[in-house]
């Protein structure tokens, strides 16, 4: 067995930061639980705000402090996204505690080319979620979790309790901005190495040991080695069986059954914005967090997103409920590219007028297409051009509307109004009947139909038994071509079509109505122009 542990020390603060406007993220901020500071970010810690102090004390230390309640549900949603990202690499993923995810990667090592390569892949998959990650690998689940929290590679004399209050330092090796080192940061390759490492670990790392911290301190028990040397029966009586069981599980002496995380079939995530979003950019900043989670989920499903729905809950406006705005974005070509999804959403948001400030965002996705995206091309080919065209059509449709980007389909009907139909353009290349034009070698046949058709036939005045257009008589050149059809549906026509020449020499197509229903004062109608 080989376990990879991902510990997210700043999860609560990062999950809260996601709900803020980008300009607020650098302010000193604290999260409160039971009226006491539970988490403080780096800027707040520099002012002396520590976890455990009261709210009023913290406000006295830093007047511009951003204060919010800690929300376990918000943290859980953020951690869920990390679980989804991890599920892309192994089906055996489990939540250890509220900030640690464990992956059993034993069966995946070979596929991904060894532990360091797999570790880099996992970190790259988690990086878009924007969390600082401490990771460790060990032969036991609990051992990996303890190492990730303790981080023996970072023994700089800094106590873990101080570390909680402080954000990650820039010298931290697994920050996404830095190139990851080749070896795993804190790891034990075999059980002996793990046991040797754990012997040096401080006692408070064990869950129950933390509650008995003062008692253990009083007994001069600092490391797990000190604890292990004491008689087991006595320790179990004093501190409970749990402490011994945990110690054994971490050292690999007892089995450690786990419940695996299950990937939901439908993606649903919500984000309550701390600062209400007044414009599309602010909505998009929040939606970007949800889209990153969506991509993590789809990656675990080994599928691409075909459509998703963003639902915006609005603030009450003058004590009236504003209905939620629902944006559905459909992709012509399923994609797994967060940037592309964001681009589409940006175009859609630009068209929407927000009725009221947005308080909450929900992202829903149930429409996916299994399988990985086709490979990209180094040189431009026909396939890459078709894909590029599909993306262009998607962008145009996102901004202009689905019905505004069209393709033309010929319909077998003699009535000019019904002979072509415009359908929304979906993919890069439409399917349809083969080209109906003659080969270019043969002599061109005369055109029977004009290229431009007026949306409605335009009535023409008649003088001296001649139709007139724009104050000039039209000279009939060819015709009549009688079209009498449609008596079986609602638009019967009985017309004699002529080709006529205008004063400047251009050709128009007009008809003489023969049906009494179409005859009013005028008999002549302009139908189209030969372009």
């Amino acid at each position, binding site marked *: 067995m080989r376990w990879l542990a991902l510990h997210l020390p700043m999860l609560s603060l990062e999950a809260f930061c996601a709900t803020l406007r980008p300009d607020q993220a650098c302010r000193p901020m604290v999260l409160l639980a039971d009226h006491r500071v539970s988490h403080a970010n780096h800027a707040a810690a520099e002012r002396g705000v520590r976890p455990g102090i009261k709210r009023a004390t913290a406000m006295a230390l830093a007047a511009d402090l951003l204060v919010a309640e800690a929300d376990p549900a918000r943290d859980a949603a953020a951690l869920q996204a990390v679980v989804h990202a991890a599920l892309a690499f192994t089906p055996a993923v489990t939540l250890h505690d509220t900030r640690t995810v464990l992956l059993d990667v034993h069966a995946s090592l070979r596929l991904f080319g060894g532990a360091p390569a797999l570790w880099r892949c996992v970190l790259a998959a988690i990086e878009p979620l924007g969390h600082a990650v401490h990771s460790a690998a060990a032969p036991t689940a609990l051992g990996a979790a303890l190492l990730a929290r303790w981080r023996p590679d970072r023994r700089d004399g800094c106590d873990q309790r101080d570390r909680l209050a402080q954000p990650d330092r820039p010298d931290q090796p697994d920050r996404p901005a830095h190139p990851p080192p080749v070896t795993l940061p804190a790891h034990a390759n075999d059980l002996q190495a793990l046991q040797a490492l754990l012997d040096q670990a401080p006692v408070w790392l064990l869950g129950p040991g933390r509650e008995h911290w003062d008692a253990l301190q009083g007994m001069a028990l600092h490391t797990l080695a000190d604890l292990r040397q004491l008689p087991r029966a006595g320790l179990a009586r004093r501190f409970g069986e749990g402490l011994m069981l945990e110690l054994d599980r971490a050292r690999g002496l007892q089995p450690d059954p786990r419940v695996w995380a299950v990937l939901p079939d439908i993606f649903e995530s919500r984000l309550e914005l701390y600062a209400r979003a007044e414009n599309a950019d602010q909505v998009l900043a929040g939606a970007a967090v949800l889209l990153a989670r969506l991509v993590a989920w789809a990656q675990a499903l080994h599928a691409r997103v075909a459509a998703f729905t963003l639902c915006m809950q609005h603030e009450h406006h003058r004590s009236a409920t504003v209905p939620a705005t629902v944006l559905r974005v459909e992709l012509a070509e399923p994609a797994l590219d967060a940037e592309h999804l964001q681009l589409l959403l940006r175009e859609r948001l630009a068209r929407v007028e927000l009725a009221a400030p947005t308080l909450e965002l929900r992202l829903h996705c149930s429409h996916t297409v299994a399988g990985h995206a086709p490979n990209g091309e180094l040189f431009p080919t026909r396939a890459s051009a078709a894909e590029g065209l599909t993306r262009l059509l998607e962008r145009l449709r996102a901004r202009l509307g689905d019905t505004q980007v069209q393709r033309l389909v010929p319909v077998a009907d003699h009535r*000019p109004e019904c002979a072509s139909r415009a359908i929304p353009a979906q993919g890069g290349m439409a399917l349809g009947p083969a080209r109906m*034009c003659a080969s270019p070698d043969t002599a061109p046949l005369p055109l029977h139909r004009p290229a431009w058709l007026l949306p409605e036939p335009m009535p023409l005045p008649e003088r001296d038994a001649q139709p007139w257009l724009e104050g000039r008589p039209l000279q009939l050149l060819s015709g009549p071509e009688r079209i009498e059809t449609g008596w079986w549906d609602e638009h019967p026509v009985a017309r004699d079509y002529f080709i006529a020449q205008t004063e400047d020499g251009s050709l128009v197509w007009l008809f003489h109505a023969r049906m009494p229903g179409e005859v009013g004062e005028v008999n002549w109608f302009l139908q189209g122009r030969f372009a």
Partner: protein
Amino acid sequence: MNGLPRSPEDLHPALWRAHQMARVSSSVLSSQFLELDAVLPGGGWPERVLTELLLPHAGVGELRLLAPVLAALQRQQRSVMWFDPPAAPCAWALGALGIDMRQLVLVHSRAALKGRARELLPAADVLWALEQALKSGHLGAVLAWLPARLPPDALRRLQLAAQAHDGPAFLLRDAQMRSRPSAAPLRLLLSSAGPDLLRVHLLKRRGPPLAQPITLALHPVLSAPVLALAHDQAQAKAQTRASVRHP
């Protein structure tokens, strides 16, 4: 004197003298009209730049002029995009002109505008969509019917975007715009010269000005006997006019 080049146009490929045709470095596409190719710099429609066609009204034969080059591009599996066509195109007529409907995309950007504003107001959407299409570089050709009023820098922006577009880009505008300055290096004024004939006046090209307009025979609408009849009638009319004037 040995150090000097023999003629100024050897200095740089982009340099040409007013009585010469410009040497076009980028490729051109034959318009399939010999008379027109002879007067266009490089011998065809230029790629990667804008080409402006000015029309008195829609339907003087502009599609029959452009259909051969569009069909040639579509035979290379390259798509054609039309922005805001002035009327509903008839699929059968386009098919008869050789245009493949599967590789033609129509983009309507002015659905939001109503009434007369539709013709006059500069729609930001069409310029945006056109710029995206040109920048993407995945299209074979672009035809855009632009509104009359445009922001002054719009054509310049489009001209810059067209540098990424590997194909011809045609802007079709009203003939009243002929006196306005334009960033397009090639401008043509089209008008009808009779049934199935198109008169092309080169307003601007990279070369010496062309005083005489050229007349092109378009894909026929009328069959040969009808066409002959029309010519006879036109001549008869001209004669009666002349006799009325000089009795």
